[in-house]
């Protein structure tokens, strides 16, 4: 073993079948601390399934997932989250009827620092805990430029801000690994631009490792250090954005066989 550092996330030979459909076939990947990796592929390639497997929503049929060198395969979703893996969802899953502040405050729950009894009799500890929760939630919202929206109901935010809020909420649990499922979906070019800056900013500020699913090539090529390409449940290529753009298998997956052969000939 040349490299002694344990990868933050290591997936080996992961398989997932739904009845006769094999959604993920023998996927392996390793993420090192501080990486920003893109996961791309045509629709139905199995990208979101990989996310659901990592975050414990699905149980893999075969294979193992290790986080910080510990086995997390088959853990429940909330257990995976407690270990430090946060995620966002393709079809935004905010607590829609709650305020923006409340969304972030709830995600901060492991750091409340008071017990059930404290909350029932409202001890001093409870008040300090609540004060800190609200302060930290506000601070996080400020990082995302959402401080003026704190009192608004999440449902009423414009689409781009709902996406931002979902990322802010995921960060409130102070994760080490962040899984972003199509953060730029449905955004206009200006919003995409500010999203890219935001992702890089939070990655630095919160010392995050990020795995990102995205269809917007501008985002993937612009900020990812390396890229994994999936097609029909398999990882067909991996490398730097530059390499991926020229890989004939990738071009074939996206544009069909002839295009792929054409690219290989060049």
């Amino acid at each position, binding site marked *: 073993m040349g490299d002694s550092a344990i990868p933050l996330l290591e997936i080996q030979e992961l398989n997932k079948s739904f009845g006769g459909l094999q959604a993920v076939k023998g996927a392996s990947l390793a993420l090192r601390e501080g990486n920003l990796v893109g996961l791309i592929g045509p629709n139905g390639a199995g990208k979101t399934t990989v996310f659901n497997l990592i975050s414990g929503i699905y149980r893999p049929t075969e294979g193992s997932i290790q986080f910080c060198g510990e086995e997390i395969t088959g853990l429940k979703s909330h257990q995976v989250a407690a270990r430090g893996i*946060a995620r966002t969802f393709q079809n935004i899953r905010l607590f829609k009827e709650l305020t923006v502040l409340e969304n972030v405050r709830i995600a901060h729950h492991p750091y409340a620092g008071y017990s059930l009894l404290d909350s029932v009799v409202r001890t001093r500890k409870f008040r300090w805990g609540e004060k800190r929760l609200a302060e930290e939630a506000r601070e996080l919202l400020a990082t995302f430029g959402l401080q003026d929206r704190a009192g608004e109901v999440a449902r009423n935010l414009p689409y781009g801000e709902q996406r931002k809020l979902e990322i802010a909420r995921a960060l409130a649990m102070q994760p080490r690994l962040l899984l972003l499922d199509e953060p730029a979906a449905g955004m206009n070019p200006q919003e995409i631009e500010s999203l890219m800056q935001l992702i890089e900013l939070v990655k630095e500020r919160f010392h995050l490792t990020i795995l990102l699913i995205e269809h917007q090539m501008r985002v993937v090529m612009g900020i990812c250090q390396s890229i994994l390409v999936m097609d029909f449940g398999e990882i067909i290529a991996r490398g730097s954005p530059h390499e991926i753009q020229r890989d004939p298998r990738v071009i074939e997956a996206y544009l069909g066989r002839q295009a792929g052969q054409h690219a290989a000939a060049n």
Partner: protein
Amino acid sequence: MQFLTRKNGIYTIATLLTYALLQGLNSAGLLSNYVLFIVMVGLTNAILTVSLNVITGFTGQFSLGHAGFMAIGAYVSAMFSKLIFDIGPATPFAMRGPTFLASLLAGALAAALAAYLIGIPTLRLKGDYLAIATLGFNQVVIVLFNNLDFVGGPRGFTAIPKLTNFTWVTLLTVGSVLVMRNFVWSIYGSQCVAIREDEVAAESLGVNTARYKNLAFTLASFFAGLAGGLLAHLLQLAHPSQFTFLKSIDILLMLVVGGMASIPGSIIAAIALTILPEVLRFSQDLRLVIYPVILIIFVLYNPLPRIKHITDQVWRRARTALADGNGR
């Protein structure tokens, strides 16, 4: 310690003043025992409705078995007060209060334990399926008490000592509501609300949804059991027919009229809907028509959430006027 925030302190003082007024009027012979009795039933219904609100309004779990937990509380507390402590005219006065409280606590704990055990398998179900499972549980409890001979079986558990009085009901209602309110407005309650809003998202944020659903269910059933115990010692009777799923539906009705996730709404609706059939007595058989019509109108044009909205605004203004935001 700040068990009471300023706002709740004012509500509590108002409640205690009302209590003193009613009690005083009753002692002076200006208020009949009948009216006081209806108010007491209304207050136990308030505990039941607020507790169902914790399960359905805040945690978003549709339960139709609340009367089952109430039954467990009623029967178990009566077993303690009548069969174990044997509280009667011979019991020294100083012992009545503590033994009564102990009996109520035993009933409430039994209901909570039942809820905890039932919750483990059933709370995995969602929506209608959970409703049917809890309904089934309610039925099981009824059948059980119908067939337990030492608590009277189908004749009902009779001659329970009359220990519930207006003072007990008021104090325990205020205490129960405050405990549930404080639970709901804490990070623990927030996690329950997160489950209601989006279970998958809550899980992804590390909320142990199975645990918090069961916590809400157990806590709420504790108070349902307490209300059952109070009622049994008020009526001096616990009968299986009092706790059928129709009672569960009654509680749900009070909850819906009062507004989901509104504690003041639950209290107002529970008391109002307890008094309403009594007020309608003048109309004799017609009240069976008038009562449902009033309910339909209420559900269509529910004014209670709006009332809450207005009181909230008044409070917000009062608070900014005081320029102090200590506690919520």
